[in-house]
């Protein structure tokens, strides 16, 4: 009874706070001063047609580096928690697991139609992911979205062809190299241009073309590769059989 009263009081307090917040909210009718600067100076200064990309990668590039770091930490955490260590007490777990599998319904392999369609579709999915992060500065999309599409291609492969072998060593090397190159480009921005992750280290090019907006496509290539391989490695950890030392 007391517990219910306490819960009710907490809910009333939260409701009071939120009602105050909602009542004091007045809609902004025009852009703030910072928004004005981004909208007016962004395209001419950076040469990027997609203003969101310009803000995320250049004006707020350090936050993006933080996001990439957070993704890396979460992928490393998943890898740490799902690691299968070969120890003596694991043999008992393996025996119990085999017995459980015999009594459960045997998993049927995917039919030949699904396997063939997967082999046809997987390159298309990966190509689309590459397109999304290569055109990040021109159309909606960018590095994170393209990387997620590539990871969904990996999940497609793992669902339809569970016996396929993905080299964890290659995934780890590519992911680390991409993250490292991202920071190297940032440092190049300090040396050659205005500041960390400034995109004017390469010429700005013609507005709206593929090779424009300085280093933004290059940055997004590395971010897309890193995110795609990272999420693929996380998905790979969830597979049942252990494939390799890493």
């Amino acid at each position, binding site marked *: 009874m007391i517990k219910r009263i306490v819960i009710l009081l907490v809910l009333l307090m939260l409701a009071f706070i939120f009602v105050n917040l909602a009542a004091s909210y007045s809609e902004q009718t025009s852009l703030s001063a910072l928004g004005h600067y981004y909208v007016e100076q962004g395209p001419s200064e950076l040469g990027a047609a997609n203003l969101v990309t310009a803000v995320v990668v250049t004006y707020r590039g350090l936050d993006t580096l933080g996001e990439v770091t957070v993704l890396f930490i979460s992928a490393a955490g998943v890898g740490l928690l799902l690691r299968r260590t070969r120890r003596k007490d694991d043999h008992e777990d393996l025996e119990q697991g085999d017995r459980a599998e015999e009594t459960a*319904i*045997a998993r049927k392999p995917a*039919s030949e139609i*699904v396997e063939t369609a997967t082999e046809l*579709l997987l390159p*298309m999915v990966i190509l689309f992911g590459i397109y999304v992060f290569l055109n990040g500065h021109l159309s909606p999309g960018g590095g994170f979205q393209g990387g997620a599409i590539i990871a969904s291609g990996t999940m497609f492969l793992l669902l339809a062809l569970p016996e396929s072998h993905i080299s964890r060593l290659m995934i780890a090397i590519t992911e680390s190299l991409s993250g490292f190159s991202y920071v190297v480009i940032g440092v190049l921005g300090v040396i050659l241009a205005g500041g960390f992750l400034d995109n004017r280290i390469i010429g700005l090019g013609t507005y709206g073309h593929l090779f424009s907006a300085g280093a933004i496509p290059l940055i997004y290539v590395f971010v897309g590769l890193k995110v795609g391989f990272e999420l693929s490695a996380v998905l790979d950890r969830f597979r049942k059989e252990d494939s390799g030392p890493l």
Partner: protein
Amino acid sequence: MGELIGSLFLLGGAIFLFSAGLGVLRMPDTYNRIQTGTKATTLGTILILVGLAFLHPAWALKLIILIFFVMLTNPVSSHALARAAHAIGTAETESTVIDQLETPANEDTREQVE
């Protein structure tokens, strides 16, 4: 003229999609519903995209690529769904005559799901 043909294709596509929805509502069991859902929606989507290609000729190549993609993915995913439904033992309607996927081997491992 192109607009008229395009609008006719759009109308045809809409009719097929409507009949797909009607079929999903009225069919007696899972496998019939999957069948109507796949065939009619794939054709309806293709007709709508062809109609759009007539209305906006500049998009024609992209729409043709989309048609290939839909034709490749929609039937395959329904096939996988139907096989999965059969594997866990989804019941068929009483008027079923032949089950071609059923073999004596997997009759024992199927659990009956209603």
